[in-house]
């Protein structure tokens, strides 16, 4: 009995320590960012004024020129996904412990993609703008980088979950490395490959709307320009187009995923 009480006591103590820690972190953050509820509540008036008077209603007449920008965003997202998935496919076979030709290659590829992944796409865009200049090239390239970083990791994880018994069965027939990859590993890997690539397309569309803000072209650039020129009704129109694009990609990819898997 005494032991059970002790366990409950330490558990409760643990919970309290974690709670105090989280509260402490929050207070520390609030102080560090000069956060005050007064400012937030007094800001509510300003925000609603801005939203209802400046942003709304959206300027529908601007939709023509914005349409080009949103299509550009779609193109960048799609091209980024296809090229990124192609490169990630090769890299992931090198990065997965089940398929890598050598452990050293595995570590190098994992480290390389970890660096790409852990630097946000927008920062890649910022760095790339310095060498390629403003435009869709920067947007597409940073989306490709982002896709490689994300997809290599999830593809490699998928490859590592593959049933090794089936691979053993192909070894037993005397097949060689490439035959086993193509005939044994790839068919098992295909559903994950398709599902993750489609999810990556969603991520890319989201990312490509914002990459424009640092000079990557597309709708992000239009939003940034609209704000700088105080054309807020155009901005809200652009945001609506972004909403439509993101929701329809989500809808379409979920339909395709359902059919294929």
């Amino acid at each position, binding site marked *: 009995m005494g032991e059970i009480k002790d366990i409950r006591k330490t558990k409760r103590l643990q919970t309290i320590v974690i709670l105090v820690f989280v509260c402490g972190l929050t207070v520390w953050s609030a102080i560090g960012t000069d956060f005050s509820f007064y400012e937030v509540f007094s800001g509510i008036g300003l925000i609603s004024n801005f939203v209802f008077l400046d942003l709304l209603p959206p300027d529908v007449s601007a939709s023509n020129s914005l349409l080009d920008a949103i299509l550009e965003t779609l193109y960048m997202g799609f091209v980024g996904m296809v090229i990124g998935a192609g490169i990630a496919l090769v890299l992931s076979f090198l990065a997965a412990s089940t398929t890598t030709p050598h452990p050293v290659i595995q570590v190098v590829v994992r480290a390389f993609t970890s660096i790409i992944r852990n630097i946000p796409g927008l920062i890649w865009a910022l760095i790339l703008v310095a060498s390629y200049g403003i435009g869709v090239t920067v947007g597409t390239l940073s989306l490709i980088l982002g896709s490689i970083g994300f997809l290599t990791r999830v593809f490699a994880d998928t490859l590592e979950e593959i049933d090794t018994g089936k691979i053993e069965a192909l*070894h037993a027939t*005397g*097949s060689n490395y490439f035959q086993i990859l*193509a005939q044994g590993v790839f068919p098992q890997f295909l559903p994950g490959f398709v599902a993750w690539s489609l999810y990556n397309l969603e991520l890319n569309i989201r990312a490509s709307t914002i990459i424009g803000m640092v000079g990557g072209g597309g709708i992000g650039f239009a939003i940034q320009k609209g704000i700088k020129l105080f054309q807020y009704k155009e901005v809200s129109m652009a945001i609506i187009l972004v909403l439509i694009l993101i929701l329809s990609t989500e809808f379409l990819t979920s339909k395709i995923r359902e059919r294929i898997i």
Partner: protein
Amino acid sequence: MEPVLKIEHLTKVYPDGTVALSNTSFDVHPGEFVVVIGSSGAGKSTLLRCINLLVEPTEGDVIFKGEKVNQSKSKQVKHIRREIGMVFQNFNLIDRLSVLNNVLHGRLGYTNTIKGSLGIFNKKDIKEAEAILERVGLKQQKYKRADELSGGQMQRVGISRALAQMPRLILADEPIASLDPASSKNIMDHIYNICQEDQLTAIVNLHQVDVALKYATRIIGMQHGQIIFDGHPSQLSDKVIDEIYDTKKPPLVNAQ
């Protein structure tokens, strides 16, 4: 008659220290239907996998058709594996590929890298694969996806894949452990009859003694990685069976 397979002083110690096989030796002659029995963990699977080098033995030799398997280069190992068909407990078919394609995987060892990777097989191989499927009664199912089949049907595809290799030797690792009694009988009949008709040699791991007694021409009993019985099924007494399956009792034979 020259033995098709010689196992000499085979020992396998896994990196974690588990001794799966210790100093095992026996010969297998052409046409034999050897059944290996023993409780789980007795080293049956390791023994089978050492024969086609899916597991690298720590010590000892595996000699197949006069060639030392465990000292071959990787290319030779692949050539030897082609002649040894293997059937698995979990069938190990590639789910999303067709039945025919799974059977053709047995021909990968004879196909060049690029064609094999792309799944392009020559007409002769396809004809043969179809003939094998007809033999096991699955011709109608050849274009179905492997995961649409029942367990018994999947195992028949597994057997077909092994047969497509044109093997000299069949290794079957608990081929009926995942099946219901009716399919189990069907699968054992298939393996036995095919080996008889094609004059193949077979080594089958089982843990049901009654099934072993029914099919085997020779039974090997294993315990703790060692062979404690090797002989004709009629010699297998209840006392020996108890000894093979009762891991708690100290071995009576060595008590002196």
